């Protein structure tokens, strides 16, 4: 599956255009990281590309078909959305929460059947949360809840995952777990993943491509190694950075060191 956005723009009412002339595409097995300062419209971009908000101009396509022409149930069998982890008012157990991801496959007046619970079980196993099966979502840590939401998205058996700041509020270890889960899903299941993040280093570690948004609505898209560079970081974030490759053992790691706030001249 190829998901693409062509020449799309969006602005909220009475506001200067937030997103101008955005174009990018993601193929199966690729990971796209969306980077940008606060207020640049990262979450808005994700919502627009999935059709939760409508573009003012331009369109999102799945394999050259505009998504507005795809029936909503078929669309959400292909795309699964992982929102920012927030506790809901009512507490559902992990299994109940994950099986909700099957909804696009279940008719309006029907209840989930054994095969849906099987899918949910597999999704929980894939992200390694089977032991949380009966735990209530309202008693979970942020990291656990994020994994539950990823499992819920996977239960739909999608071709593409869209994750809204999946690792932002998590500790070191949980950040690594989430990033490795994304990498693994793309590599082994050939699921395309789109995630937005505050950390350029996470983009370099996990993503194959990056889309950088600047505060004046410009965007830069390309392979991650090419576009996440010192110049573009200064342009987008007004921060001087030093990007460094460190070799530890036989693997090399990339670090992004923030040096100082750049004078925005």
């Amino acid at each position, binding site marked *: 599956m190829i998901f693409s956005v062509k020449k799309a723009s969006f602005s909220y009412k009475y506001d200067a255009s937030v997103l101008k002339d955005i174009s990018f595409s993601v193929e199966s097995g690729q990971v796209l990281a969306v980077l940008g300062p606060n207020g640049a419209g990262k979450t808005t971009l994700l*919502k627009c590309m*999935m059709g*939760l908000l409508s573009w003012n101009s331009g369109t999102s396509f799945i394999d050259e078909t505009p998504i507005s022409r795809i029936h*909503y*149930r078929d*669309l*959400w*069998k292909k*795309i*699964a*959305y992982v*929102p920012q982890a*927030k506790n*809901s*008012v*009512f*507490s*559902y*157990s992990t299994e*109940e929460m994950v099986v*909700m*991801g099957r*909804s*696009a*496959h*279940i008719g*309006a*007046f*029907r*209840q*989930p059947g054994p095969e849906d619970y099987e899918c949910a079980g597999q999704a929980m196993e894939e992200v390694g949360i089977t032991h949380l099966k009966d735990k209530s979502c*309202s008693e979970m840590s942020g990291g656990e809840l994020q994994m539950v939401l990823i499992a819920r998205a996977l239960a*739909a058996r999608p071709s593409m995952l869209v994750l809204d700041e999946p690792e932002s509020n998590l500790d070191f270890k949980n950040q690594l777990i989430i990033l490795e889960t994304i990498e693994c899903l793309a590599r082994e299941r050939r699921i395309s993943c789109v995630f937005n993040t505050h950390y350029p280093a996470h983009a370099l570690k996990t993503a194959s491509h990056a889309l950088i948004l600047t505060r004046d609505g410009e965007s830069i898209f390309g392979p991650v190694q090419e576009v996440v560079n010192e110049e573009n970081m200064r342009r987008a974030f007004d921060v001087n950075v030093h990007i460094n490759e460190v070799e530890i053992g036989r693997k090399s790691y990339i670090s992004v060191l923030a040096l100082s706030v750049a004078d925005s001249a």
Partner: protein
Amino acid sequence: MKAPYNLPVRALLAVLPILTALVCIGIGRYSMSVTESFTVLWSGITGKTYAVSPQAWSVVFNIRLPRILLAILCGSGLAVSGAAFQALFTNPLATPDTLGVASGASFGAAFGLLLGLPSIFVQISSLAFGLAAVSLSYSVSRVRGKSSIIMVVLSGLVVSSMFNAFVSLVKYVADPENQLPAITYWLMGSLASVSYRGLAIGAPLIIAGVALIFTLRWKLNILSLNEDEAKSMGVNVKVMRAGVITAATLVTGSTVAMCGQVGWVGLLIPHICRMIFGGNNRYLVPASISLGAVFMLVIDTVARAATSAEVPVSILTATIGAPFFVILLRRTGGSWL
């Protein structure tokens, strides 16, 4: 520890309202044992009426049975509407009246009583104004073609208080000798004035509404998430919300039209069921239907049999329901949510 929702529990939930009804139908000034009540009811089904005394037959079929049926419909209907609205508005404090249906229906009934309409028209006027109030709330909440849940709840609040003011106005102009007491008594809720004719109008609407919510019960879980999340699960949120609101409105409107304002059931019963079975609406909805019916049967039996005069139902639901709820709250600290 949550109770499992397995076959024996489901069977118990199905049988409990029937057993309660059999017990309650025998309670009253003319009292009967469970077997006697059953014999009378059975004779009605088989048509062999000569086997029972005409007096017993008349008490059961003319006086008590319609009330029993109404109690079952009204209890399960209000409980299930409450559960549906709590999920839909993602708010544990939502009640069947959140969109103003009960206030609208109360005004409709008060207005009908003021005009001295026959009881069947009072019921129809009440139902019509209940539906009108919710349509008004829903249309007020639509800003530029979109309506968020918070707007729906707020406009429900506004419409509710407007119709409450109209009720006060009707009471103010009503004749204090006979109209005012009739209106006041009606507003406090009673199942006493039920008739088979009234049931014939109300029951199908209540049953249809409850059936719709029952079939959508699992989707209520998804509607209780935030809007974008629910949409991303491949649910047509707009249509689904409108369906649930219509169903709950028909149920509550018909209930209020037949027995006045019966408070508390829609809040109390879903929360008790949540405590027993957990928050999953797939189990919560059938449990609310069953326990709502049981609760209302018990309350109405107390209302008609505890004292020589009839006690208004809403006084009982509040005086029995509120302390019971407080005890549960203090025991659990609200941990079931």
